[in-house]
């Protein structure tokens, strides 16, 4: 029972980290109908940036988030401008899979050259700290990551719902032709949307580097998990990504703690399969546009 409850605590807290990563992924799909296979590589890239800022300047990874967010936003805008914009509109959904996978490989290559393939961890004084409550351990970094994800998702919600940019994004998602006729610059919205989605990788990267050892190849395991989360939650739905992250994280943690880690990685694929059979659009996916 102790292992089960500890597993549930770990699963819920870890879900925050995955929700951060997956929200960017699903945002990009919602705006551009692009499945960004580079999202995992962007998270690892952000983890390296945090690592470097900590190693070189002693900058705390949480305090480094504003800096890495700006860098990741710029990287996202550049990727959209260089690699996705030239794609023909009718081929974009299919070709973007190849293009973003190529971007992931490119990022992996850059990370390998700059930081080598040695496994790194961000070891702050509190990286392995935890609080004991009723005999259970609440890992500090996971708790902060969970709270951070709530804040980040709140900011994302505010941007989308309360700003002119957000209104333009929603208008483009709901009816791109009408939005264009009303003066919304869809190309700029796409670039900024991709940048915003990439920027969520910044906070996720800082947390990931604090929690897990990583190297340039770590993104392969991440991306399969992220895709499962966004498919489970429903492509394009940020709320769905959060719920998907909780289900995936919780189910695999409980299975690993109580049955076997061999089955834990497979558990969420089974859950995903069942959801897709019953509800092919995912839990919160909608048939029409305007899911964000």
């Amino acid at each position, binding site marked *: 029972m*102790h*292992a089960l409850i*500890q*597993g549930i605590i*770990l*699963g819920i807290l*870890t879900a925050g980290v995955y929700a951060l990563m997956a929200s960017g992924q699903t945002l990009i799909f919602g705006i551009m109908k692009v499945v960004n296979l580079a999202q995992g590589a962007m998270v690892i890239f952000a983890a390296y940036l945090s690592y470097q800022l900590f190693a070189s300047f002693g900058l705390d990874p949480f305090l480094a988030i504003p800096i890495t967010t700006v860098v990741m936003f710029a990287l996202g805008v550049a990727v959209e401008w260089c690699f996705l914009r030239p794609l023909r509109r009718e081929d974009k959904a299919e070709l973007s899979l190849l293009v973003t996978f190529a971007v992931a490989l490119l990022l992996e290559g850059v990370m*390998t050259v700059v930081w*080598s*393939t*040695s*496994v*790194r*961890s961000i*070891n702050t004084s509190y*990286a*392995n*700290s*935890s609080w*004991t409550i009723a005999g259970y*351990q609440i*890992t500090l970094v996971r708790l902060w990551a969970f709270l951070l994800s709530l804040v980040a998702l709140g900011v994302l919600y505010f941007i989308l719902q309360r700003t002119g940019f957000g209104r333009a994004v929603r208008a483009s998602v709901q009816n791109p032709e009408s939005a264009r006729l009303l003066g919304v610059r869809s190309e700029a919205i796409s670039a900024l949307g991709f940048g915003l989605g990439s920027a969520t990788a910044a906070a996720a990267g800082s947390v990931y580097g604090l*929690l*897990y*050892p990583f*190297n*340039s*190849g770590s993104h392969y*395991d*991440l991306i399969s*998990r992220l895709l499962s989360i966004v498919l489970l939650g429903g492509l394009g739905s940020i709320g769905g990504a959060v719920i998907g992250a909780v289900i995936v994280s919780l189910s*695999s*943690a*409980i299975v*690993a*703690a*109580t049955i*076997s*880690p*061999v089955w*834990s*990685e497979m558990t969420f694929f089974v859950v995903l399969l069942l959801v897709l059979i019953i509800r092919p659009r995912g839990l919160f996916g909608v048939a029409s546009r305007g899911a964000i």
Partner: protein
Amino acid sequence: MSKGNRLYRAAASLAVVAVVGAGLTACGSGSGGGSGSNGPLVIGASISLTGDFSDSGKAVERGYQLWANTVNAHGGILGRQVKLDIVDDASSPTQVVTNYQNLINKDHVDLTFGPFSTLLTVPAAQVAHRYGYAFLAPAGGGPQVFAQKLDNFFFVQPAPVVDAGEAFANFILGLPAAQRPRTAAYAELDDPFSAPVAENIRQRFEAAGIKTVYKQVYPSETADLSPVMAALAATKPDVIVGGTQSEDAYAQVKALVQLKYNPKFMFQANGANAPVDFPNNVGTSNTSGIIGSADWFPGSTASGSAAFTAAYIKAYGGNANQVDDNSAEAYSVGQLVQDVAQKTGKIDNATLISSLHSGRWPTLLGNLSWDDTGAPKGQYNLVQWQNGKLVPIYPASSAKAKPIVPKPNWGQ
């Protein structure tokens, strides 16, 4: 032309191609080597410079390179300069096969040195055997390698890797009864090197009455080991045995620190014996008391050890405590080639194979000898983290410090 004639000509053409192909293959096999006896001695090796084993793979590369530079600075082997042909296998057992086939058949290297890990050595040694190449491997001593019974294979460490667990079992079972653990937990990576080490310990412990309270094998793609370690910690074992490589070794320690569970003894098959990467990833203050196995250690008096240490520090910086034993193992591979050449006056694969199967050969790792399957006949040392350094603690003949028992708490 009749149909019969066309078939006959096609069959004859195929036969000619097959004969020519076989001839070309034969030219490139065995003691071949396109560089000739007066040119450089070209040695091919596939190493994991990227992927899961890249930490250890790069340490192996440093060892090979350091040996080649050292031997070249002293005039080479039998007057031939050593040239390394190193390719990356990305830690892939498929790529490693392609690499050795290319090194032998395309690059026509004179000799081959082994890759990192049992996973890659098993198929790589088969390729070398097929073409008559001696295969000296600094890593990859899991049971599967010796089960192949290849006469060209030599594992360049003091003992098969399962014996790394044997040394830990001997150490624990040799403790006074009051200090000996009563319960044990095993968390093992699904890997042909790591899991057998832990399993060997488990069998010895169970036979001696140490109860197994937890045992799980986790796949290499397990992103988060915290739930596994949480379940393990809930059983409150006296001793934790990690059948680990590197990334998972660090993750195990981090999870245990976060869970505030400190066992009386902790052993890791690999990872904890990395003098730089281990403290960098788990924090130096969390290393105290963790035990690993090693065949080389700073201050070793084995053949060439002092010169190796000095050359390593000169080439790569740091200090003696930061020298990775994977580099020492790789360097020892080169030492063996050098020794055979000096003793026989020849340097070819057949001579290497026949020579190494008899006698004892001095290396950084001590005097090595092998049985018919390439399994070395010596024993490992146990090393323990004490005051931020790895020090040999067992067996008594090579110990430089007393073991710290029980393990100090995390952060101390």
